[in-house]
């Protein structure tokens, strides 16, 4: 077995790992953690593995990873035979990717928390967290719009990288918190591109592309 993922099916952060593994065609084992309503991520067993009490947790042999962005880096460096998802030979592009991995972490705290609040009644300052989420969506929209004007599509460089995967879930899931995508055309275009990647997998709230096609050619 390649790795184990301590997983919660509705978590956007867990989905980053499921999506990346699917795109890299890596099989792995999942262990379901009852994040809600059981709060099992705060149980002694999980806290022993990850004192921060967050999900996902990824283990492989003796290695334990608790930061989603670190897991994406490890997955790409370990299983991406093309070397394109985390291009280590291009310092500027790699730095841009790292910038957006940081942004993805902030997005979890804004759009991700807004979603938990609206969906599972998570305690949060709704107004503040939604204002932060809108600000983050605008930041991403501006960046992706600039990329389109440059003739690009992806967050960093000419192809998809782990930065796209890191930013994708909580952007795509923002309508779960009532934050629709209507005002973000560049984001919509990019979401479409991610969903068109070979091997893409869905999660509740993020649909397969053919679900939205209005007509079928065959």
């Amino acid at each position, binding site marked *: 077995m390649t790795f184990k993922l301590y997983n*919660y*099916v*509705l978590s956007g952060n867990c989905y980053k790992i499921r999506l990346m593994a699917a795109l890299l065609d890596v099989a792995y084992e999942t262990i*379901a*953690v*009852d994040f*809600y*309503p*059981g*709060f*099992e991520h705060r149980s002694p067993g999980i806290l022993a593995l990850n004192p921060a009490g967050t999900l996902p947790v990824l283990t492989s042999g003796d290695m334990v990873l608790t930061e989603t962005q670190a897991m994406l880096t490890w997955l790409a460096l370990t299983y991406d035979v093309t070397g394109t998802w985390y291009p280590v030979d291009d310092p500027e592009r790699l730095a841009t990717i790292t910038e957006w991995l940081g942004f993805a972490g902030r997005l979890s705290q804004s759009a991700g928390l807004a979603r938990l609040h*609206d*969906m*599972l*009644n998570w305690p949060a300052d709704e107004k503040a967290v939604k204002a932060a989420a809108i600000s983050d969506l605008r930041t991403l929209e501006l960046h992706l719009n600039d990329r389109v004007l440059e003739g690009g599509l992806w967050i960093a460089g000419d192809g998809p990288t782990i930065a796209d995967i890191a930013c994708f879930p909580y952007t795509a899931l923002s*309508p*779960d918190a*009532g934050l629709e995508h209507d005002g973000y055309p560049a984001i919509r275009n990019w979401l479409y591109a991610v969903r068109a990647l070979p091997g893409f997998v869905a999660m*509740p*709230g993020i649909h*397969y592309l053919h*679900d939205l096609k209005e007509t079928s050619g065959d």
Partner: protein
Amino acid sequence: MSTEYARNDWYVVADVNQLAAGQVVETRLLGQPLRVSGSPDAPLVTTADGTALPAQLRYDHIWTSPGADPRPLPDIAEAAERDRTFVPCGGVRVRCSPLRAVENFLDIAHFPFVHTGILGEEPHTEVAPYKVEIREDVDEVWATQIGFHQPQAAKSATEAIETRYEYRVPAPTTAVLYKTCPPKPEAWDVIAIFVQPLAENECIAWPWMALYDEVTPYADLVQFQQEIFLQDRSILENQKPTLLPLDPRLEIPTRCDLTSVVYRRWLKRKGATYGALTTAA
């Protein structure tokens, strides 16, 4: 908007996990703020002015009713079968009418398209004729003789099966389904949805299961149901009109929607119109 009928039903306002963890739950019911506190065995539900409402623990949830003369809380006999695994799946807030949430729970036709690979798959999309009736003696809607091809009918299913279903609606915001139990085909798995109306256009759905499954880890059972319900959530939030139309001129049903047709007729007859549109615009 009338809460006249609705006030005298029982509603879930918290689950046993929340009170066991010592939480004080601030929530709403029929537009009014409520506080739920106490322990699972001695729950306390109070209104904004401190009035205590009746409160009871049933089916792993805390129930209350704001009415002066509440109708009986629906009986689910399988809850007494102690060899079942009982799974309260947590509350999920949805911006839709509480009646829309129940109607979606009763719908079979969407399985292959919304729950692809789990509760249905193309090309097995046909809904064969089934029977729906209002059982006057118990005043409940029942849909029976339903069969559907399901790739993963339950976590315990090891292959696609032709699943048998029965649906039962004992109260406007409570629905129960009985479906083939894959490891014990002579018994039914029971899945219920208890819908807490926050307002006419907003609700919390509390799925609950009573299953025969001694193999699947508990967390997998919860997540299996949550994955299915959350696939419905984005669909529910995009239904227009938001309220459930009871006037047949507002939405055209097809043959496979028979349960919904009878559910709507039953609601209209009772005057259970909280969360409903009663006349064509």
